[in-house]
């Protein structure tokens, strides 16, 4: 298969937890500029795959390349500067801090300040903080959160918190954004709005997106490509339409006999 060079290339990746095989020689290719859906029944290994890409779990075999880097030689906190960002199923936000402060955390690796700046060189700290704040506020207005910028996260509704996490992941202008169940807990209006926002980020910012979702409608509307996992294996791959009509996929979801 020729074409544009893949942004993310996973080959024969396996992950084991004790005796359990969570991923079994999975291949995944995410093309730059695409929106790639990752679906599958519960326990299929979708989150494990995202965690492996984030280097949060150590694969027992296979290769993982991102934008020309061998990701397996990096430690988890070194992944972000390469241009990988993600959200979690159970939002990892700072509850007492404001939306703005939470989004500023997304600029951690972009922010040039050091501990020494924070403590001693306050003039440099103030300048950098002001720059970063501008950037975070621009991101907030893009996702429509500027009005709650100074509100502590714990006072906000679930959908807004999810958007805060999305803003935090996007603010550093990653190359690849990985979303773990962004549609969970959203109503249909919120879901539609999210699909529009992601499509816009993809179109206007060239953001490549790898998204786990349970919602087929969401996937059909948004994704260019879809990969289906079941019991740690890749069982289908293609356009969302192709995948939906694939007999193996139907079996995996509904069961046989």
């Amino acid at each position, binding site marked *: 298969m020729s074409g544009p060079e893949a942004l993310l290339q996973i080959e024969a990746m396996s992950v084991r937890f004790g005796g359990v095989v969570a991923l079994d020689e999975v291949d995944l290719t995410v093309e730059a500029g695409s929106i790639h859906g990752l679906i599958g029944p519960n326990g299929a290994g979708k989150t494990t795959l995202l965690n492996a890409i*984030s*280097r*949060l779990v150590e694969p027992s075999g296979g290769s993982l390349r991102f934008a020309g880097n061998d990701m397996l030689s990096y430690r*988890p*906190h*070194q*992944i*972000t*500067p390469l241009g990988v*960002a*993600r959200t*979690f199923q159970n939002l*990892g*936000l*700072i*509850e*007492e*801090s*404001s939306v*703005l*402060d939470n989004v*500023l*955390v*997304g600029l*951690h*690796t972009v*922010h040039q*300040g050091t*501990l020494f*700046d*924070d*403590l001693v060189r*306050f003039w440099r*700290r*103030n300048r*950098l*903080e002001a720059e*970063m*704040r501008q950037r975070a*506020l621009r991101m907030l207005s893009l*996702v*429509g*959160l500027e*009005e*709650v*910028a*100074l*509100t502590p996260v714990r*006072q*906000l*509704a679930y*959908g*807004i918190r999810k*958007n805060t996490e999305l803003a*935090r992941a996007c603010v550093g202008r990653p190359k690849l954004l990985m979303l773990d169940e962004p549609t969970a807990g959203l109503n249909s*209006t*919120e879901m539609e*709005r999210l699909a529009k926002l992601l499509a816009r980020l993809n179109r206007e910012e060239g953001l490549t997106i790898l998204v786990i979702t349970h919602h087929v409608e969401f996937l059909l509307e948004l994704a260019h490509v879809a990969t289906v996992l079941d019991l740690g294996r890749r069982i289908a791959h293609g356009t969302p339409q192709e995948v939906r009509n694939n007999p193996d996929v139907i079996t995996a979801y509904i069961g046989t006999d």
Partner: protein
Amino acid sequence: MLSRVPPAARGGWLVAGVATLLLILAGFTLGNYERYLIVIWLIYSISGLGLNLPIGFGQIYSLGQGGFMLVGAYTTAIVTSTWHLPYAVALIASLVLAVVVGILVGLPAMRLRLFSLAIVTFAFGFMLFHVVKSFQFTGGPQGLFMDPLWLTDAFSGRAIYFFALLVAVLGLLASYSIAHSKSGRALLVVGQNETAARSLGINITYYKLAAFIFASVLGALAGSIHAVLTSYVAPETYAAELSVTMFAAVMIGGKGKLLGPFLGAAFIVGIPEVTQAARGLAEVIYAILFILVVTVSPGGILGILEGLIGRLRRGSIKAATAGERAP
């Protein structure tokens, strides 16, 4: 529309500024004993400010703060009175040693969490207590009597008073600077969710260790001032109990709140003063306070006060809450 200082911090600055002015005035007008009490309060506050960073921001429950105070106190005593060097040298030596000990204890300890970390740091303080008790050059069980220092008696005790005040103000400024910057935010995420922190590119060990060293440095400064104030260091002063007291002070005052340690320290110093007649009563009250705070109000006493002020404000101004607006 966004000012540099968040609205919640403005009230804090007002309190801190007025308090500092009052304390400067008090330094000139109060008698010896009252000034002595205030210095003791400032010493606990400085140490608590240090401990507040790991506990309140990084959820690093360190129970070894007394050990760092011991390091500062004994270093000061040995450098000034055994080696007869100026206090400035003792101060620098205390700081350097605090950093070194902070790294030595912190590097292995920061891999641990919650209970294991509390136990390891507690054991560290306990060990130091026994070390200084066993060795000749630390004065053994009796401790060390120090040479009279200029700083102890200058201006009839006012020099040490203003020195302690200066260190406390600097400690507060440093805490504020960290709390409202990249490092503080990173530490908060580390405390709340390590997985999220990693995926945001935050080096967890670095920030945990930095917080721990911040605590050790301020702890050692507090210990050093304490040694100068009393001209005497003894193992019992820096026993494991001190670590527990410091931990409780931070929790009672309100962990993660910059003025919390000052409030918590006021209870350490204040309750024994108020209950002088009944021996042991101070400890009982202190223990009850600790239990109440931990079970009823995790935000500490400052958290309760902020809640009350917030409620009053909301009562008077019908605040325009944009909270429910969907994006």
